């Protein structure tokens, strides 16, 4: 599903590389936490997965494709097989919940009949059945994140990438979101989630990958968040 071979990434104006010689493999259907303090390289790791950046050295394989060899015009196709969820939800404030989810299907040219059928199904799945007509501003943070997850999942992606999805939510709401991600994971979708949330990592007991100053310092199945922080 995902393979990093000796991947390094340095940005032009920084002396220290953001990622240094990272090698790892993530299999199909895994649930992986990516932890580490700010500036440890988590974001760069996710950006490489999304092909927003290219690795400076080494190879990144996602969904069986070498991203360095993927030409620019094929990138959108690759991204259709990924779902992404962010800390700040990234919903369109002037569209309803249903339209926000439908947007993901519209821009890739899905026929309207199938959109009309799929959107309520996915909203049901994330626990927002019947709220298609509401505006994002009327919803709580947790509900907005559910909308974002619905949008990420509506294409039935093989891989779901979540960048601190609970970062803006209170602990109780976060648990709800984690249960939802866990359910999505059980349908066979691989989930990679960057997080600072110690409680969640310790509770879920999934594989934990820790980065520190761009290096891979820990890769532990059924791990915990760490010792300090």
């Amino acid at each position, binding site marked *: 599903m995902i393979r990093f071979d000796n991947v390094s990434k340095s940005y032009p104006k920084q002396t220290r590389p953001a990622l240094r010689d990272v090698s790892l493999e993530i299999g199909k259907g895994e649930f992986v936490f990516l932890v580490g303090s700010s500036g440890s390289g988590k974001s760069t790791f996710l950006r490489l997965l999304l092909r927003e950046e290219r690795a400076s050295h080494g190879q990144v394989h996602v969904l069986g494709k070498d991203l360095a060899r993927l030409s*620019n015009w094929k990138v*959108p196709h690759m*991204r259709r097989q*990924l779902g992404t969820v962010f800390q700040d939800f990234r919903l369109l404030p002037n569209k309803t919940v249903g339209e926000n989810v439908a*947007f993901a299907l*519209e821009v*890739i040219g899905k026929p309207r009949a199938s959109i009309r059928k799929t959107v309520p199904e996915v909203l049901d799945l994330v626990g927002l059945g019947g709220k298609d007509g509401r505006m994002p501003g009327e919803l709580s943070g947790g509900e907005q994140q559910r909308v974002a997850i619905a949008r990420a999942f509506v294409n039935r992606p093989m891989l779901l990438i979540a960048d601190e999805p609970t970062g803006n939510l209170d602990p109780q709401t976060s648990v709800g979101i984690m249960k939802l991600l866990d359910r999505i994971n059980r349908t066979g979708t691989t989930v990679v989630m960057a997080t600072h949330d110690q409680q969640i990592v310790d509770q879920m007991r999934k594989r934990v990958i820790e980065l520190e100053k761009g290096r891979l310092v820990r890769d532990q199945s059924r791990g915990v968040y760490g010792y300090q922080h």
Partner: protein
Amino acid sequence: MRAQFVLSEISVGLRRNLTMTFAVIISVALSLTLFGGSLLMRDQVSTMKGYWYDKVNVSVFLCNKNDAEADPNCSRGAVTPDQKGEILSELKRMPIVDTVQYESADQAYKHYKEQFGDSPLASSLTPDQMQESFRIKLKDPQKFEVISSAFSSRPGVQEVTDQKSLLENLFNLLNGMNIAALGLMGLMLVVALMLIVNTVRVSAFSRRRETGIMRLVGASSFYIQMPFIMEAAIAGLIGAGLACFLLVSGQYFLVNNWLVDRIDVINFIGWDAVLTKLPLVLAIGLLMPALAAFFALRKYLKV
């Protein structure tokens, strides 16, 4: 791809930047009006030049039967074949003469018809009213006086004219106006292009949320860029339509309803000249802003 979705995105984008859209429309309209106007002015000049203008320097007009009664220079009657032969051979002997061409009355009639078409003045003429003439090209165009002094008082010659003197000043004026119009057009075009680039930048910025999400869910770059390019193209097309309207009303009010009534010796351009320019104006108005938007997007919209 769904047309309705794209169209709604475009109309939202155009309305969001209403003032900028207006600025683009007006500057495109003005620059294309100047462009079309200068093309038409060139047509006008070449219409006025007629058949001989660029080919010869001096014309020696010979008396015909009408002139014999009306013109004091021709009081000794119409030109005779002997006189014609004499003038021709003398012209050919002069070292400053490069070439001499003889134009018969029928040829003159034909050229006149070509220039003036079916204007009321032309339709009242008959071939035998036309003058025969010698059309002379000089080795040195400044030596008009030599021909003039040698032939103007000769029997059978009605008049010797310097081809350039008559219209040269007018043409210089028109050419000057033409260059000024083209220069102004160039400036307006630069303004229009910069406005388009800026409009694209602003609308790419104000829609960065949408485009960011489109990117995340895997929309193709064509799909993301299309609304921006279409917006610029539509604004440009409206501007070009306005330019066409200005050109047509210029022809209608200024030329057909005003100049033609006041100046009847000049043959003005007709509708065909105006109408053939309109498709070009529309095409430029559509393509140029679209291209400008396309290049602006490479800079301001990450895809």
